[in-house]
């Protein structure tokens, strides 16, 4: 309940608070009347007695009494607040109000309002949701909020963050795989392979071999020498270098490069390895939102026409994706 690690500090704060409030009341009461000198004619001096620049005097004009009432009202408010709400040291207040509980209550209200909509989508197949213009609009907003920081507003990725609009998938592009990725996150690790491959020259040769797989310009001699050393990589990427989606090992034969396809970059990847994380969103967003998000991401590489032809229950005429 209270954040004090020691009971003393709760009492310390409470005593200071009570003294401060009582002090204000006493000050207000004691200063509401003042003994003043009378002048020779027995008249009350209506100035404070301060004189500046020879003749500037300060009037001692009384404030309106209702104003004093307002001051006392603040004290009444303070006492009422401290009784009802947390504030007096470790005391939690009669209402038992907590910011965490208030947040949860607000979430509950939001869930009650938007939950049914997401539940409707959750009951539909991802391919069908991807055809729904409203779901796509929701998905786009979710994507811009939660995914665009890494994958870019256009979902085409950045160095280290995969492009989500092409047909190349590290962990599979089926709706279930995409949903899994978003729900649970992914942790892609390529260990440093320099020692396993061999000398610096061997690393360079393997890099050239890997580049040749996707028809990138490479040195034929180095390619021939590197091919023999590729066995160290085949455990994950496969002998044919087509990768393994179960491990998240990329296909090395296409033109898609997560970290870059120049000789230097590929050599760096082999020598130092790569370590990459996609966070899990399931707990934060909830399955309903992730389902809609999955449909949006799936739709990025499957234009509406393709989706409809693939047998999804296409009902409304979908608008042409205008990104």
């Amino acid at each position, binding site marked *: 309940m209270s954040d004090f690690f020691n009971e003393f500090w709760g009492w310390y704060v409470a005593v200071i608070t009570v003294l401060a409030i009582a002090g204000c009341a006493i000050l207000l009461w004691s200063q*509401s009347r003042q003994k003043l000198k009378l002048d020779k004619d027995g008249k009350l001096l209506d100035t404070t007695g301060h004189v500046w620049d020879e003749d500037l005097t300060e009037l001692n004009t009384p404030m*309106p009494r209702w104003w004093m009432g307002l001051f006392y009202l603040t004290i009444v408010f303070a006492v009422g607040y401290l009784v009802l709400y947390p504030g007096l040291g470790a005391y939690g207040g009669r209402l038992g109000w907590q910011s965490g509980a208030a947040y949860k209550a607000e979430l509950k209200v939001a869930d009650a309002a938007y939950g049914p909509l997401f539940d409707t989508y959750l009951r539909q197949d991802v391919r069908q949701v991807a055809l729904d213009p409203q779901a796509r609009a929701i998905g786009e907003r979710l994507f811009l909020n939660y995914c665009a920081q890494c994958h870019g*507003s*256009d979902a085409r990725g950045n160095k280290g963050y995969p492009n989500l609009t092409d047909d190349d998938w590290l962990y599979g592009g089926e709706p279930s795989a995409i949903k899994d990725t978003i729900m649970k996150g992914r942790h892609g690790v390529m260990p440093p392979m320099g020692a396993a491959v061999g000398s610096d020259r061997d690393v360079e040769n393997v890099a050239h071999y890997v580049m040749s797989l996707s028809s990138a310009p490479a040195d034929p001699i180095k390619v021939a020498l590197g091919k023999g050393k590729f066995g160290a990589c085949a455990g994950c990427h496969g002998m044919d270098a087509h990768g393994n989606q179960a491990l998240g090992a990329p296909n090395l034969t296409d033109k898609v490069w997560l970290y870059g396809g120049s000789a230097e970059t590929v050599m760096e990847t082999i020598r130092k390895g790569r370590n990459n994380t996609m966070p899990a969103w399931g707990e934060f967003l909830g399955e309903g939102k992730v389902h809609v998000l999955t449909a949006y991401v799936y739709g990025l590489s499957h234009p509406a026409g393709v989706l409809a032809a693939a047998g999804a229950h296409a009902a409304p005429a979908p608008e042409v994706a*205008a990104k």
Partner: protein
Amino acid sequence: MNAHAPREAVLKMYAARPDIHPREVQGRFATLRWVGVWFTQLLFYGLPWLRLDGRQAVLFDLEARQFHLFGLTLWPQDFIYLAGLLIVCAYGLFVVTAVAGRVWCGYACPQTVYTEIFLWIERRIEGRRSARIRLDRQPWNAEKLGKRGAKHLAWAAVALWTGFTFVGYFTPIRVLGHELATFTAGPWELFWVLFYGFATYGNAGWMREQVCKYMCPYARFQSAMFDRDTLVISYDAGRGEPRAAARGSAGAGAKGDCIDCGVCVQVCPTGIDIRNGLQYECIGCAACVDGCDGVMDKVGKPHGLIRYATENALAQHLTNAQVRRRILRPRVLGYAMVLAAIASVLIGSLLLRTPLKLDVIRDRGAMGREVEGGLIENVYRLQVMNTDGRAHRFRIEVHGLPSAAIADGQTIELAGASARAVPVRVRADPHAAHTGSNPIAFTVTATDDPATAVTEKAVFIVPR
């Protein structure tokens, strides 16, 4: 050291509010003030009931973030117009105050207007000034209870209607009226109706001149706009003194016009004596002018013992024409010029504004990426807002770099009064740009109306 030993007394630092029972007054300025009451209140109570194009004509829709002013719809991005409006109001106040003092306070300020209405109710129920003072002093009995109860009920009714009307500017008033009548209004609507109702009741019924004396900031800084040629409510001491009371002792030789009847004090809503000269409490309502003129009629003397006059006019005996000529002095002309300039800029920009808004946010995740053909690609998010009532198709173009082009052919469709974030990819040849940032600009144009176009600056980054 002094023969008289200093005596002491206790000064109360908080004074009780003196009872002020303003006497009823009739005359030119009272009529003018009632014109002010009718004009402002017909406007205030009437406006929310007007309808236009199937919606409330004046509605400040906080939930949808749209301010409807007849045909005009303002968005949060148009907030600058509110600043402009406030500046225009301020300079309007400056001009009027420099020319004729606290005219706003005396005739149009809500505090004055509602006090006037509440006083009218008070008079209808409790009677004239003398009857009210008597009622005040008499012990609580059935008569006092009945009159006071009726008064407060009537006040509360006006106050609640005022609170209801005020909230009706922010939430559709017909719906609100129905909700209140069927006890289904939301807690916050109800709260604000009661809050503004209570504020009206408290300020116009109980606080009255205390608001002007102690709370109002304008009352205090208006004196900075005064000068010796500002028209203020003035007592012509040269004509009035010595007063009747003094005349008695000074003999028949001295003949001041003031008969010391006290009417000017009795009619004053702030309870001051204007014959003591200009005071900060004076709200410029001219009730004392009307009161004194009435008395002058009865004693057969000319009007104007208390009148609108400038300090210079009284001191130098200026004619009305001379006073009028002095209105066009540098201070007033300066205020008026600033007022005219800001007002015309405000109206001009309102008339010429484009019903389209654009914000460009560059993706911060990456500097830029290399794509096929050796081109560099940057990603932007364009927040396009169609503030027009109709749907439009918009074309997005980029310029500023010779080779820059948008990767996808860009046109978007936007429904009326809606906004959308559009991801846009811009590609450029790195050899035609420098490494680092290059200024570019986006232009969004309505395809059916080339005049509806907005350009926004951005930066294109070529990584090293």
